[in-house]
């Protein structure tokens, strides 16, 4: 039997994940709808004054994005855990880290990327200044992959547990807080016409850190849960 290269296996698994995700379209929509509904509740609770909404726009979008992505994490490993394909993936001769990364990337493409696009629309609803739109998208572009990466560790730890969803949120939300701080402060700086380089560098550094460390932690967690 010919031995496949890691890259081939990575892209093969990525294709499988994306195909599975697209076949379950309604599941993909759930986090997105949740995101839209949570954001819609703020004008209802606070009143429709544009000035007030403009001030809280970034905060609302980011908090809603954090919550939506913590809900969407549950689908990363669950169906594979239930039908046993997760065990097969871990038992394969390929490096498990690579395979886990394929799953995380697929999760980001299916949940993080749509979130960024809908955040663009919502920023108009909340009267976010034009000058802040691009910085907000940049922070989301750097932040949502970190959600998927850090989230994959906690998801792996709680996969198959009863009441896993709530527990999962409890475990990861504290770990997301630095992201929230950097992202919101970047956008607020942009509104005031200040430089946002420092925050973006920090977010990029966090992304690189997460990219290097989390695959090992996720694989180890999955092995523990499946042992």
């Amino acid at each position, binding site marked *: 039997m010919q031995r496949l290269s890691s890259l081939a296996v990575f892209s093969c698994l990525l294709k499988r994940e994306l195909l599975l995700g697209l076949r379950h379209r309604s599941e993909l929509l759930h986090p997105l709808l949740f995101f839209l509904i949570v954001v819609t509740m703020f004008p209802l609770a606070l009143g429709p004054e544009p000035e007030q909404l403009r001030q809280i726009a970034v905060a609302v979008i980011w908090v809603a994005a954090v919550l939506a992505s913590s809900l969407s994490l549950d689908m990363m490993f669950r169906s594979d855990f239930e039908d046993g394909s997760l065990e097969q993936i871990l038992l394969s001769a390929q490096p498990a880290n690579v395979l886990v990364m394929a799953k995380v990337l697929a999760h980001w493409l299916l949940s993080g990327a749509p979130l960024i696009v809908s955040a663009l629309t919502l920023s108009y609803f909340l009267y976010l200044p034009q000058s802040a739109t691009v910085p907000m998208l940049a922070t989301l572009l750097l932040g949502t992959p970190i959600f998927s990466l*850090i989230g994959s*560790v*906690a998801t792996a*730890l*709680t996969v198959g*547990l*009863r*009441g*896993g969803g709530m*527990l999962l949120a*409890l*475990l990861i*939300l*504290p*770990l997301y*807080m*630095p992201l929230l*701080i*950097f992202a919101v*402060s970047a956008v607020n700086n942009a509104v005031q016409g200040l430089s946002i380089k420092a925050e973006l560098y*920090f977010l990029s550094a*966090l992304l690189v*850190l997460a990219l290097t*460390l989390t695959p090992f*932690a996720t694989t*180890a*967690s999955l092995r*523990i*849960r499946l*042992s």
Partner: protein
Amino acid sequence: MFGPLDKYAAPERFYLLCKSMGPWLSAISLLLFLVGLYGGLVYAPSDYQQGDSFRIIYVHVPSAWMSMFVYVVMAVSGAMGLIWKVKISDAIARSCAPLGAAFTFLALATGSIWGKPMWGTWWVWDARLTSELILLFLYFGYMALQAAIEDRRMAARAGAILALAGLINIPIIHYSVEWWSTLHQGPTVSKMDAPSIHTSMLIPLLIMFLAFKLYFFAVLCMRARCEIIEQEKNSRWVKQLARGGVDS
């Protein structure tokens, strides 16, 4: 692997070690508590700005230090369990969590009691308070994960990974929150070359710190004993112990 300490890695030896150390640690920590509290509440002069209300630091500062120390102990012993499969380190990590959460809560509560007369409010969204609060959430997350996984071995290993992820995150959380807002006074004790606290106030604080630390180890010994008994309940020595045999 740990040289002469190796033999204590066996659960039974560690159990007996904890049993013999426990009362000593408790006694010394009680003594230090009495000395430290006398020093802090009576001997130390009152502050020229804050009056007598500064005296809460004798509980507040040691518990804040301990809240972070306990997390490190928890994560490191979790890692030892993960890497070298040391059985007792699972028990230690698991015993640490409620203690650490208690210290964190104590730091927050005493800080809040001090904040009312000083800052005029029970709670401010200040950097150190907030990162301490997030630390409390990390402890709660660890405890929730421990409670959710029934298999003890698996729970311990899963908890170790979570604790390590938290350990990497604690500095990031700390500095990001520091950047976000700061009202808390700067560090006074750690500037060792010229501490901005007078010696007569500092010495009781250090004694209290030792007392807290020994108290932690004393309670850790008790909790670890319970954990080990439960973890090893099928082994021969525990069964003998239950019959009142080996224990001497």
